[in-house]
C-alpha cells in the first residue's frame, strides 16, 4: 500500500518488499497514480533493495512498467558502498532529446511544411535497420565513442555553440572505447547518423504557448516560433554495449554476493573492474548518441537552409534521459558524490549548478519533455525543488498507459496517420504499421505529467510546442 506523504508525493513503505534498504517515493498526482500498474510500484521497491542507495528509490509522474528500473525511475548510489546497474540506464543508452529554435514564424513556414518533412524524411535515415548516409572509419567511430558531439562538430557537423548548449557539453568523460565489443562497433559504424524507429522522431513544431515570459526570453523562445525537436539515442551500438555488459555484471552479482529481486538489476560495486568497465562502455555509448543527435541536427539545418535564408536553428539544449552519472548532491546537509541513474528521467538542475551553461546558469537548465506523436511537447526550467526532492531530476515524457499489442488492436497505423493529417500534422514514416503503437491515445496526457513537476517546483513550465510535421522510423 502506498502512503500519501504530501501533495503529489507517495511513499512505497519499507515493508512493501523484503530487502528494501530505503523507502520508495513516487512523485505523482492522484489521477495519474490511478493509471500506474502494480508492477511499476514493485519495480520501485526492487530498486530500493540495491546496495548503497541514498534516501529513496524514486519514480517521476510519467512512471510506468519497465524492465529492471521502472520507466521514470531515479536512484542515486554512494560512491563508497553503492553500485552501478545497466538496469537503471537501459539498452538505449543516452536516448535523449534536443530542441533547436529558429528565427522563423509559423506562418512563414506553413506553406513549406510538406517539403520540409519530405526532405527531412529523405535526408535523415530512419526506420528499422536503417543505414546512415555517413561512412565513418574505425578511427572516426572511436572518436565518436570518446568525444561525442565534440568530434561531430570538429568533423563539420555544427558549431562550437552547440556543445555549450548540450548536457555534459555532448561528451561524457571517462569513455573507454576498449570496453566496446567488436559486435557493438559493427552495429554502430553504419548506423551513426540515423534516427532509428519506435518512439524516436524528428519533428517540426511551433511554440503555441508561453507560460513564463522571462524564462522563455532567456531560452530564446517566443509564441508562433518554429522549433525542431530531435528524439533518438545510441542505436545498435548502445543496445549491444548494454547486452554485453549485462552478462558480465550478471556474473559480478554472484562474485560480490549481491542479492537481487530481478536479474535485469545486475550490478557491480562502484570501484570494481566490472563497474568501471561498464561505466566506460556506457559513457562511450552516451557519446555516440550525442554525436548522432549532432549529425542529425546538421542535416536538419541543411534542409531548412534550402528553403529559408534565415532559419538559424540554434540549439536551445540537449538532454539525456537514459543515463548514469557521477554528480555532487547535498545529502543531510553534506555534499556527497553520487552515481545518479536516470531511466526515462531528465536531469533538471536548478539555478547555480556549474554543469549548466553560463547563459542559463542563474535561472536553471532547460528541461525538454517530448510529447507522444501528435501531442504537445514542453520546455521547462530546472528548479530548486528538484535539488531538494529528486537529485535534480524530472519526468522525461508522457508515459505509456496502453501496451503496444493493445494499441495495435485498437488503432490501425493508417487510421492514426489520417487523424493527424486532419489535425494539420504532416507525418512521414518508413513503417506505417508502427504508427499504431505510437498513437497519441496510448500515452498519459503530457500536460498532467508536466503539471506535477511544475507544482512540486522540480521544473517550471516555460513553453508548450505543438507538432506541425513529423518524420519517423
Amino acid at each position: 500500500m502506498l502512503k500519501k506523504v504530501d501533495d503529489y508525493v507517495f511513499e512505497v513503505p519499507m515493508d512493501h518488499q523484503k530487502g528494501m534498504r530505503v523507502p520508495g517515493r513516487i512523485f505523482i498526482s492522484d489521477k495519474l497514480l490511478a493509471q500506474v500498474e502494480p508492477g511499476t510500484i514493485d519495480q520501485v521497491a526492487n530498486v530500493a533493495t540495491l546496495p548503497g542507495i541514498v534516501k529513496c528509490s524514486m519514480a517521476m509522474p510519467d512512471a510506468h512498467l519497465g524492465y529492471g528500473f521502472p520507466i521514470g525511475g531515479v536512484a542515486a548510489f554512494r560512491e563508497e558502498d553503492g553500485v552501478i546497474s545497466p538496469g537503471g540506464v537501459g539498452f538505449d543508452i543516452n536516448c535523449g532529446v534536443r530542441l533547436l529554435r529558429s528565427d522563423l514564424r509559423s506562418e512563414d513556414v506553413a506553406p513549406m511544411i510538406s517539403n520540409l518533412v519530405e526532405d527531412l524524411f529523405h535526408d535523415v535515415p530512419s526506420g528499422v535497420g536503417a543505414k546512415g548516409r555517413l561512412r565513418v572509419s574505425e578511427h572516426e567511430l572511436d572518436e565518436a565513442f570518446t568525444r561525442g558531439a565534440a568530434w561531430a562538430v570538429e568533423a563539420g557537423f555544427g558549431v562550437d555553440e552547440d556543445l555549450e548548449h548540450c548536457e555534459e557539453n555532448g561528451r561524457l568523460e571517462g569513455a573507454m572505447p576498449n570496453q566496446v565489443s567488436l559486435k557493438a562497433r559493427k552495429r554502430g559504424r553504419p548506423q551513426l547518423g540515423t534516427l532509428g524507429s519506435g518512439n524516436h522522431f524528428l519533428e517540426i513544431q511551433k511554440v503555441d504557448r508561453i507560460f513564463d515570459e522571462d524564462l522563455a526570453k532567456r531560452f530564446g523562445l517566443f509564441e508562433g516560433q518554429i522549433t525542431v525537436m530531435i528524439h533518438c539515442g545510441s542505436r545498435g551500438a548502445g543496445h549491444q554495449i548494454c547486452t554485453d555488459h549485462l552478462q558480465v555484471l550478471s556474473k559480478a552479482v554472484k562474485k560480490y554476493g549481491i542479492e537481487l529481486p530481478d536479474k535485469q538489476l545486475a550490478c557491480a560495486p562502484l570501484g570494481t573492474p566490472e563497474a568501471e568497465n561498464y561505466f566506460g562502455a556506457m559513457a562511450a555509448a552516451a557519446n555516440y548518441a550525442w554525436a548522432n543527435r549532432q549529425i542529425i541536427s546538421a542535416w536538419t539545418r541543411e534542409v531548412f537552409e534550402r528553403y529559408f535564408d534565415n532559419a538559424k536553428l540554434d540549439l536551445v539544449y540537449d538532454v539525456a534521459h537514459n543515463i548514469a552519472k557521477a554528480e555532487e548532491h547535498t545529502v543531510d546537509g553534506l555534499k556527497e558524490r553520487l552515481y545518479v541513474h536516470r531511466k526515462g528521467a531528465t536531469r533538471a538542475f536548478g539555478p547555480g549548478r556549474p554543469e549548466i551553461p553560463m547563459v542559463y546558469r542563474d535561472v536553471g537548465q532547460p528541461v525538454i519533455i517530448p510529447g507522444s506523436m501528435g501531442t504537445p511537447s514542453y520546455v521547462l526550467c530546472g528548479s530548486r525543488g528538484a535539488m531538494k526532492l529528486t537529485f535534480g531530476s524530472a519526468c522525461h515524457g508522457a508515459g505509456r498507459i496502453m501496451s503496444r499489442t493493445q494499441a495495435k488492436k485498437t488503432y490501425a497505423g493508417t487510421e492514426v496517420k489520417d487523424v493527424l493529417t486532419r489535425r494539420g500534422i504532416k507525418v512521414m514514416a518508413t513503417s506505417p504499421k508502427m504508427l499504431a503503437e505510437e498513437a497519441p491515445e496510448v500515452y498519459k496526457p503530457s500536460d498532467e505529467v508536466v503539471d506535477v513537476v511544475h507544482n512540486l517546483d522540480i521544473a517550471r513550465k516555460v513553453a508548450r510546442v505543438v507538432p506541425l510535421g513529423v518524420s519517423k522510423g
Partner: protein
Amino acid sequence: MEPFEYLEHTADVKFKARGRSLEETFENAALAMLGAMIDPATVKAEETWPIEIESESLEGLLYEWLSEILYLFDVELAVFSRFDVKLEEDEGGWRLSGKVGGERVDPERHFFETEVKAVTLHQFEIKKVAGDGGEEIWTAQVVLDV
C-alpha cells in the same frame, strides 16, 4: 501445446515460449521474438547463418542465442523465419550450435511492426512444467525491450 504466446506488458514485449525439448523451446523463443518484429509469412528462408555459443548457464545460453539473432538482424540486414538448434551440456556448461534461415530485408515486402532493441533479463525464466496432457514440457519467459 502452443509454441508461444505474447503476455501483456505496457511498454515492452513479453512472451512465453514452449517446447517438448529445450531445443524446441529455444527455436520457439526465436520465432516469438521475430514474430514481434515482422509477419513470418513474409520471410523466405533463402539463406542460412550459423550461430555457435557457449555459456555457463542455460539461461545465459538462451539470452545469448536471442541476442545473437538480433545482432545478425542488425549487421546482416536480414530477417529470419527458420531456426534450428542443437544443445550439448558438459562440465563447463552449455554449448549451442544453431542455424537461422532467412533473407535480406526488402523494404518492398518486409513491413516491420516493432523494432526490438534488445533481450532483457527482467523476469527471464526457463522452467520444466507439466503440459496439458501431463507430459513434461519446457517454458521460457522473456521480456524484450522495444
